[in-house]
């Protein structure tokens, strides 16, 4: 394996293999990136009714979007929900992952499937079911839950949970149990051993889990559809409601801002954690 610029070692470059593989790769990226590129491009169009070629370019739509309170409110609601959901899923999921990674025990398969189930059930079904359930709870207890932040938080925590459980479990798998055993034999209590030995080693996994969990919660549409209420709507639903009336560069601007902010958040988080690990 020399430091060649080609992704393939020489023998795999013979004949049609390399062009076909690289061609397929390029096609895949075109598929995935084209809607993203289209939206970012359109957000700068001058003409309100989108048509090609554009008559000109402008930042006006960004200004217009910033002036609309529903986008700001939606963004902050989604942000709050994302943070709450991620925290809950970590608090609840990391201990679960610790248990699941220990090794076989009766019922482990079932518990694992249960914790991953929210990913498998269709979002629209889970959201509808949760809505009906919360109405029954409210009827029985008199406490309002449906269409409150709590109801949304429950749904979003469930969205986030499979991601934290699985990603933390995956990072625990590579962990040598003897490291912790060594700490225990030297007199450390269970929690101290966790804090000083296990935690630093699984931290990257936890961070990755938190990131994917946050993303999954932020972009969710289906689960939240039934559970949003007056004054408390998530950004994806605000966007869909807007799209029902018109598709113009304003919504493209909102989308571009959303992507930019979250991507920036990703980079920032990485910087912070990288620095921390240096100590």
């Amino acid at each position, binding site marked *: 394996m020399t430091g060649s610029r080609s992704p393939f070692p020489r023998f795999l470059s013979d004949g049609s293999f390399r062009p076909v593989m690289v061609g397929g790769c390029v096609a895949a*990226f075109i598929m995935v990136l084209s809607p993203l590129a289209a939206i970012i491009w359109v957000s700068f169009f001058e003409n309100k009714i*989108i048509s090609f070629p554009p008559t000109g370019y402008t930042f006006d739509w960004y200004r217009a979007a910033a002036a609309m309170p529903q986008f700001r409110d939606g963004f902050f609601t989604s942000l709050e929900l994302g943070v709450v959901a991620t925290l809950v899923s970590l608090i609840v*999921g990391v201990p679960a992952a610790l248990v699941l990674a*220990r*090794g076989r025990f009766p019922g482990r398969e079932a518990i694992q499937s249960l914790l991953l189930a929210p990913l498998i059930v*269709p979002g629209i079904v*889970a959201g509808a079911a949760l809505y009906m359930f919360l109405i029954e709870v409210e009827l029985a207890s008199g406490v309002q839950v449906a269409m409150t932040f709590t109801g949304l938080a429950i749904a979003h925590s469930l969205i986030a949970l499979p991601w934290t459980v699985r990603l933390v*479990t995956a990072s625990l798998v590579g962990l040598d149990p003897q490291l912790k055993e060594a700490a225990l034999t030297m007199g450390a209590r269970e929690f101290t051993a966790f804090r000083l030995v296990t935690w630093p080693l699984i931290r990257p996994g936890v961070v990755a889990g938190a990131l994917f969990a946050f*993303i999954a919660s932020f972009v969710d549409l289906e689960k939240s559809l039934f559970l949003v209420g007056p004054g408390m709507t998530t950004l994806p639903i605000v966007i869909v409601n807007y799209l029902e009336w018109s598709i113009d560069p304003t919504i493209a601007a909102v989308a571009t801002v959303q992507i930019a902010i979250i991507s920036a958040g990703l980079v920032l988080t990485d910087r912070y954690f990288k620095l921390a690990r240096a100590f």
Partner: protein
Amino acid sequence: MDRVVEQGIQGVSALAITGEGSLTGGRPAPGGTDRRRRRSTAGWLLFPSLTLVLAGLILPLALMARTSVAHFDAASPDLVGFTLENYARFFGEPFYLMILARTLLVALSCTAICLVLGVPAAFVISRVESRTLKTALILATIIPLLMGNAVRAAGWMVLLADKGLINSALLSAGLIAEPVRILYTGSAVVIGLIAVLLPFMVISLESVFENIGTAYEEAAQTMGAPPWTAFFRVTLPLAMPGVFSGCLLCFVLAMNAYATPVLIGGPSFQMMAPKVFEQAIKVYNWPFAATIALVLMAVTLVLSVASSLALQKRYGVL
């Protein structure tokens, strides 16, 4: 960033695996009182997450199952009766069976195309030498997931509309005389879903190809195998668990798709998840909506388990 991205990849590919594939089980457990102590702490550690899933998902689904056998009465909001009429209606009318068939067709087509495109992409990424290029490619796969389905659908509307980017480009290049109708057809839904699902497939496969390494391919080469043979006879069979888990994830996500079919499929292209929503919200027939939902989940589950068993017979435990 690299470390985090790597962790993410490992975890996502592990997420797709339904069996024991990624976890090395059978670690020797400490004996005696230690085991008992571990069991009780295990209980406490698992309790919160299990409660969340039970209260937030399982109980509501049980309520939904109960609703599906209730009688639909437009005037009364209460659950009355026990009847199988909703299921009889679903399976008795060709219209609904056709919607189920169409959903299956879309899901299978998307999975197949994602496989055909995802394998080259994952393979190329896994074999890239430069660290930064590899991370950049993986980020390019993940960041579109940040868009959310609604915005992505808006992007496709811009691209696929009769006066959209693709048609405008083809028209001005003189390749076509009249705009090609893509938006609000089944093809648009398939295209839109593929864009959603490819990142999952690519990430599932990438770490698998990464772990297999090049040793086996090199061995095949020393024995005189040309690249395609080496790939299909050596690399791909070794990657089978990853291929299967990627396909399964894509299939399930496609079956459950809601936003993409609704936004770019148009009113005539009806699929299962949008039907659930329509029956619940537009017709207020919650019992029938619950029935459709349960049929969707059951079909997805049965097909997943069946294919898992079938492949296990062929390739051993996945």
